[in-house]
């Protein structure tokens, strides 16, 4: 019997523990809900207060202006009265003088008086002294329109409407001839009292609401790559919304699903890939887009045309930039938000992948240039190398010799290079924090910057005088560049 009592008691203990756990859960939920309500309330009241404050400001300004205009007109009146007073005084004095004059000259005076009388008459008739105030002393007080504030106050106590539930895709075997199993989910923030389910039959011969999407179009000039990865960007190709995209690598059959119109895919070095994209919506996937060939030899990038200074023009293939001889007048130059405005420069679209990158720049004997890297937000009205957001090698041509600077923050080491490089190798190593320059034809090291890049950088190029330079990329970095 003791055993049975013990069991009963144990059962009760378990029940109570359960109950306690339950209570705790409820307690937490209540706290959560309270917290949410509190936040909600605070937000709401803040909005109301802000609106009221705004109204106050507006009214106050209005009253101030009214006061000002009333004072102005009263002052004007005062001035006019003062003038009238002065004129009247003068007339009185003149009259008094005439009155004090001797009788011998009376007949002349009578004549004068006659004239004066006319004069007085005219003057007084003219001066219809207006002794009424030009403005009322009352201020207009229009009724404040606080109806929207009232609405806001009313809505505080109202529970916000829930968000639309999301219907889950239909599960296989969840329907019979006469019934359907519909599942949906809701957002946990919502308070829901009940659901309303609506349905209508879809006629068989009407075209399904969901048609297949059109294939996207890969934006060739916005794709870049390096030995470990490629960045592919494309245009949706659809006016109707698309759920997601599928990026396919034909070589390996790998497939990656992404929600936006770009994708950074990991690849293997030294290979060639054919990459295409499909758009996917409820109806299914589209046809494949035209494929793009990506080669993971070296680092490959295009130049960012929308950063180019207006004086720069680009070759058709997009890898040579020219600074023409003709002087463009300032007004003819179309500066956009993103273009360089002083330094005749352009940025390159380097793939945002840390690691090692290498590219080459071809110049001639005379071209004065700056080549290097810069942060994406480098000052567009600055000169490459003159600020802390760019590093570059600069070539200056004087009549007698070549001068070289390796600029960052406006400072350069003092060095001489005896053979002018016409093919410059640029080697960027994010992990080691180095940016090195080489005479690629001679395999000669010129200079290395040591800097911890806290962000991704872009190749930058500028021409300080009319000339041209060509960017070569997709080149495997020579061994000596990353010793």
């Amino acid at each position, binding site marked *: 019997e003791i055993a049975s009592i013990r069991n009963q008691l144990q059962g009760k203990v378990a029940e109570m523990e359960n109950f306690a756990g339950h209570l705790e859960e409820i307690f937490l939920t209540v706290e959560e809900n309270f917290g949410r309500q509190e936040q909600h309330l605070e937000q709401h009241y803040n909005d109301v207060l802000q609106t009221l404050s705004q109204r106050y400001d507006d009214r106050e300004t209005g009253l101030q202006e009214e006061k000002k205009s009333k004072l102005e007109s009263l002052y004007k009146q005062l001035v006019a009265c003062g003038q009238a007073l002065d004129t009247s005084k003068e007339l009185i004095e003149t009259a008094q003088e005439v009155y004090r004059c001797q009788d011998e000259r009376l007949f002349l005076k009578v004549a004068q008086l006659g004239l004066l009388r006319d004069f007085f008459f005219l003057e007084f008739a003219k001066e219809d002294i207006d002794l009424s105030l030009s403005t009322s002393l009352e201020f207009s007080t229009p009724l404040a329109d606080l109806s929207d504030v009232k609405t806001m106050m009313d809505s505080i106590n109202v529970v916000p409407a829930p968000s639309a539930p999301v219907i889950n895709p239909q599960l296989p075997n969840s329907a019979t001839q006469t019934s359907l199993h519909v599942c949906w989910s809701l957002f946990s923030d919502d308070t829901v009292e009940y659901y309303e389910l609506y349905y209508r039959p879809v006629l068989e011969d009407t075209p399904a609401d969901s048609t297949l999407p059109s294939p996207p179009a890969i934006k060739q000039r916005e794709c870049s790559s390096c030995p470990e990865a490629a960045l592919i960007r494309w245009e949706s190709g659809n006016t109707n919304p698309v759920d997601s995209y599928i990026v396919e690598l034909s070589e390996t059959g790998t497939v990656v699903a992404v929600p936006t119109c770009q994708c950074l895919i990991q690849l293997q070095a030294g290979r060639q890939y054919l990459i295409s994209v499909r758009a996917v919506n409820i109806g299914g996937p589209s046809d494949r887009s035209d494929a793009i060939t990506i080669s993971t030899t070296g680092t490959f990038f295009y130049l960012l045309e929308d950063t180019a200074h207006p004086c720069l023009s680009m070759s058709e293939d997009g890898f040579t930039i020219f600074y023409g001889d003709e002087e463009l007048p300032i007004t003819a130059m179309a500066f956009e938000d993103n273009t360089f405005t002083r330094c005749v420069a352009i940025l390159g679209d380097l793939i945002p992948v840390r690691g090692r990158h290498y590219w080459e720049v071809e110049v001639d004997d005379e071209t004065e240039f700056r080549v290097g890297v810069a942060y994406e937000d480098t000052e567009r009205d600055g000169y490459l190398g003159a600020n802390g957001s760019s590093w570059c090698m600069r070539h200056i041509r004087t009549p007698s*010799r070549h001068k070289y600077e390796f600029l960052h923050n406006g400072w350069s*080491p*003092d*060095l*001489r*290079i*005896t*053979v002018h490089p016409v093919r410059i190798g640029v080697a960027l190593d994010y992990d080691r924090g180095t940016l090195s320059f080489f*005479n690629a034809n*001679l*395999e*000669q*090291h*010129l*200079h290395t910057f040591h800097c911890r890049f806290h962000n991704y950088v872009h190749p930058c190029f500028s021409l300080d005088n009319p000339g041209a330079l060509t960017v070569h990329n997709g080149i495997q970095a020579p*061994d*000596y560049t990353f*010793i």
Partner: protein
Amino acid sequence: MALTQVSSNKCAGGFQKVFEHDSTELKCKMKFAIYLPPKAETDKCPVLYWLSGLTCTEQNFITKAGSQLAAAEHGIIIVAPDTSPRGCNIEGEDESWDFGTGAGFYVNATQDPWKTNYRMYSYVTEELPKLINANFSTDPDRMSISGHSMGGHGALICALKNPGKYKAVSAFAPICNPVQCPWGQKAFTGYLGADRSAWEAYDATVLAASYSGPQLDILIDQGRDDQFLSASQLLPDNLIAVCSEKKIPVVFRLQPGYDHSYFFIYSFINDHIKHHAKYLNA
């Protein structure tokens, strides 16, 4: 040729040793320092010859320049000979610090009383490499040369006079144009006599003007606050001018605040060893 080990210290994972031998060129006992990197225990390594400057012995470079870590990292043997024959008892050899003992100028003297012993050019370019290759784990086809001040002059002339022999060359504050500076004029007069044409065979600027051979890639570091630079003993501008005209690739770096001392060498030795490694390990 018998080598006697004078000292051995473990350093940067390898060994810094000093040896002594009887030199046939210099006709006296000579010491040299040699750094053996860890890699030398298992593989044949390339050799960098370091020539020191006025008043130095084989000790200065190995105790002050801090070269061993970089040498170990890149697997390079560094050999640092003395700067002149020692104990030859030649009259006047100890009179000046810039001529005679400790001031061999890496030439083969033609004048008495120097011509018997003062043959540092042949010692460095012929006898020493043979000795090193015979006694250590070296790759005889891969050698390079570097030096400081008078040793910089030595490195430059050895490379220019032996096209293809050295895979890389670099220098710290070298005497670039000795026939035009007081040091060079004094030394060459004593060792080579009054005939200036004999001097030109040991002048880097003159040699560069007529150099023909495999392409060089010369790295030169020069302290901007070097007292000897301002005293016109070093004259790098002359060498740069000739190399620009003859298209000999040089990168010349003027380092602000640095002087002529081993503190300067210490500061940039890593860059130089890396420069040599690029060619020695290619």
